[in-house]
């Protein structure tokens, strides 16, 4: 190990910053420098190394939380509980994690290595969010080849960013001398060292390669001279000559293992058809020959730059070899229950059939624990191999539904499932059948009767052959029945869902059924029961980090309906507005139209008639697009009438005695959610003065309530005039 006080000093300087960025091309000793520095700190360390498969916020934060949990068991527990469910919002677990770290109290360094692999916008946004919420006791170090898009500019401007970049990371001649002469013991002159450093431009990986190579040649001085006079790309040249110095078997092993990137001895044995990989790896690691052990038990990687050239060489010798190795690795990992890694290798093997098969075999784990990974891989595949894997198609449709805002994709997947049903009936399982139908019921679409029929069939199939889908099927069926106006049947289907013996482990279906129970109870005027069910739905989803998801939006909508019936219009509007945002999509959906109708109603009741009208018009457009004339359309017609009446009432008669400026100031705040004392505080008035202004406003406008006053002010445009100066 070369001592690099220069580099440690630069990292020390970062103690004052929020974020330290260590950026440079591969092989600049970034990881080594940070690891070495960390080992001398009196701080706990959470280290995460990413790869291209980690482009999913849920997985990214699962790794981070797991690493933090290793610092002290339990630190990452709450965050981990909230992760790993489809559609879960990422801020909640990040908040949990940051709170846990803050409560830990001691210094913690979090290192995110190879962050260039993370390119997904949502991932980077989640990191940006985390950087903004880091507790005082935490330092974040990012190691990357490319500057990540996480608002570095503003961090730099505020002095919260420390940077260690290529120029600083490159070896100076003195450091090169330390590496090659003092450590490796070569008898090289200052001039020869200079040649090496110049030729490699201080690139540490190239100098390390040079050292490994010089160690194996008879005449190092002559080799340096030859190297100095060569024009080949340094890493190319050095990898080549270094591999040349190895025996055939070692060379073959290194080239093949390089393809795998990350591996265990067992994986190498299985994939490369050997039995001695453990010994080989240990020997190469001891010889410091580009093999490094990873944090997590038994996994290794080959130095990435060397691996690139070794793989290139293997490909030049045998063009088909890399794909074959990836294909065998995919099978081996899939058989050992590691579908996420298996999928990555299958993708690199370019074997779409194998990829589809892995998705089919492991669809349930990928759906429930893989975030949107399943959907993303399904997107990359052509129809043909997928048609044989209906389980994967339908599970991906569930993911698309639960993410919200993916209606078009969900419909594409359902059409594909239909094709699979007719074209590959032998592989079309009861699970796929039940799930395809339950997704139809879930989204309801324009014809609730058809959705209910699909839901009913989904329930029958699940009862016979796919119990894991039963609660979700019953919940979807109940919701379709509710939209079809069959309240009694909706009630009993939802009740059957929550009476399932395994209900505690079926959070999604459970919450969905509870939301429907709340809606039915509210329709029947049983407000107490309705509230209980809506709150329970929310509690269940909160427990699994799904509060802000499509299902969470459903729970919010149910609670919104209950709040309307309780007369709490401001609170109802908040819940409904949230749900409306989640349901918004590229195409009209019944759920979204329904939310717009409810929002129009609540806005009308709050006296904001113009807004109510606009919202109702949007709802009407979506209902027309859907050609829906059922329950939601009837509700829309009622709300439109209500808005019209409110407008007529509000514009009735003239205002002879306009409110004074002081009264107008009060009137403006009556349109808000503030209470009378709060209005007083805002305007520096006593509550009694506010009440007397209010009475005077009511008299002048000829109204009897706060809502009517706001509506009338809206219609008469009383509040649009600029406030007169005091």
């Amino acid at each position, binding site marked *: 190990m070369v001592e690099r006080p220069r580099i440690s000093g630069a990292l020390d300087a970062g103690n004052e910053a929020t974020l330290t960025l260590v950026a440079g*091309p*591969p*092989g600049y000793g970034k990881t080594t420098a940070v690891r070495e520095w960390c080992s001398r700190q009196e701080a706990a360390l959470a280290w995460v190394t990413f790869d291209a498969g980690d482009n999913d916020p849920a997985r990214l934060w699962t790794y981070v939380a797991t690493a933090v949990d290793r610092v002290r068991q339990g630190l990452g527990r709450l965050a981990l509980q909230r992760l790993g469910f489809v559609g879960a919002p990422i801020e909640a677990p990040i908040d949990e994690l940051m709170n846990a770290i803050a409560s830990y109290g001691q210094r913690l360094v979090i290192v995110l290595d190879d962050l*260039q692999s993370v390119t997904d916008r949502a991932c980077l946004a989640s990191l940006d969010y985390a950087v903004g919420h880091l507790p005082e006791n935490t330092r974040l170090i990012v190691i990357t*080849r*490319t500057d990540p898009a996480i608002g570095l500019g503003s961090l730099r401007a505020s002095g919260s960013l420390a940077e260690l970049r290529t120029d600083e990371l490159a070896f100076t001649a003195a450091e090169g001398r330390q590496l090659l002469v003092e450590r490796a013991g070569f008898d090289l002159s200052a001039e020869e060292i200079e040649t090496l450093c110049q030729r490699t431009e201080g*690139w540490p*990986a190239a100098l390390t390669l040079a050292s490994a190579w010089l160690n194996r040649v008879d005449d190092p001085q002559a080799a340096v001279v030859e190297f100095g006079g060569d*024009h*080949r*790309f*340094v*890493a*190319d*040249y050095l990898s*080549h000559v270094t591999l040349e110095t190895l025996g055939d078997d070692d060379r073959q092993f290194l080239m093949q293992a390089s393809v795998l990137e990350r591996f265990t001895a067992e994986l190498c044995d299985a994939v490369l058809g050997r039995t001695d990989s453990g010994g080989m790896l240990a020997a190469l690691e001891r010889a410091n020959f580009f093999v490094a052990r990873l944090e997590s038990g038994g996994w290794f990687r080959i130095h*990435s*730059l060397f691996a*690139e*050239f070794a793989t*290139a*060489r293997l*490909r*030049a010798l045998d*063009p088909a070899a890399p794909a074959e190795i990836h294909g065998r690795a995919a099978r081996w990992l899939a058989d050992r229950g590691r579908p996420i890694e298996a999928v990555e290798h299958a993708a690199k093997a370019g074997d779409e059939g194998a990829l589809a098969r892995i998705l089919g075999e492991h669809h349930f784990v990928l759906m429930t624990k893989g975030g949107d990974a399943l959907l993303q891989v399904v997107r990359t595949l052509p129809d043909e191999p997928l048609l044989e894997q209906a389980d994967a198609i339908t599970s991906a449709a569930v993911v698309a539904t639960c993410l919200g805002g993916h209606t078009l994709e969900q419909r594409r997947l359902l059409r594909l499932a239909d094709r699979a049903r007719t074209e590959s009936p032998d592989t079309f399982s009861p699970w796929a059948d039940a799930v395809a139908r339950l997704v139809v019921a879930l989204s309801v679409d324009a014809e609730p009767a058809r959705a209910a029929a699909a839901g009913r069939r989904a329930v029958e199939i699940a009862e016979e052959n796919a119990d894991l889908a039963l609660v979700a099927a019953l919940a979807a069926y109940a919701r379709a029945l509710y939209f079809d106006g069959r309240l009694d049947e909706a009630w009993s289907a939802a009740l059957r869902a929550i009476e399932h013996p395994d209900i505690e482990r079926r959070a999604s279906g459970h919450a969905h059924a509870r939301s429907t129970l709340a809606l039915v109870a509210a329709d029947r005027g049983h407000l107490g029961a309705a509230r209980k069910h809506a709150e329970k739905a929310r509690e269940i989803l909160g427990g699994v980090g799904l509060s802000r998801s499509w299902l969470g939006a459903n729970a919010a909508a149910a609670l919104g309906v209950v709040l309307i019936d309780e007369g709490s219009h401001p609170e109802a509007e908040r819940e409904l507005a949230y749900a409306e945002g989640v349901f918004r999509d590229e195409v009209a959906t019944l759920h979204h139209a329904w939310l717009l109708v409810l929002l129009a109603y609540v806005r009308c009741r709050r006296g904001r008639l113009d807004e109510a009208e606009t919202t109702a018009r949007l709802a009407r457009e979506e209902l027309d697009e859907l050609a829906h004339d059922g329950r939601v359309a009837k509700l829309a017609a009622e709300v439109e009438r209500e808005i019209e009446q409110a407008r007529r009432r509000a514009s009735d008669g003239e205002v002879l005695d306009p409110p004074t400026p002081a009264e107008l100031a009060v009137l403006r705040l009556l349109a808000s959610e503030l209470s009378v004392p709060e209005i007083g505080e805002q305007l520096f008035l006593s509550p009694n003065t506010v009440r007397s202004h209010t009475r005077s406003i009511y008299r002048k406008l000829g109204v009897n309530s706060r809502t009517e006053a706001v509506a009338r002010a809206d219609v008469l445009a009383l509040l649009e005039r600029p406030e007169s100066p005091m």
Partner: protein
Amino acid sequence: MIVEGELSDELSPTFAGMTLTREGGTTTLVGRVRDQAELQGLLQRVSDLGLTLLTATAKDAHDRR
């Protein structure tokens, strides 16, 4: 596209579809790039190999889709 250092033939398959010409310590890679995605992939390869990119020029601009 011109990168620093002369690349060996072993790396040719890595830049499939590109013609490599070596001269005076640099390598010139010439080839048709269909779209931005392919271009980004190519730049990614350059970065993975630790190559220093000296210049990148678009030719036949009117041919681009």
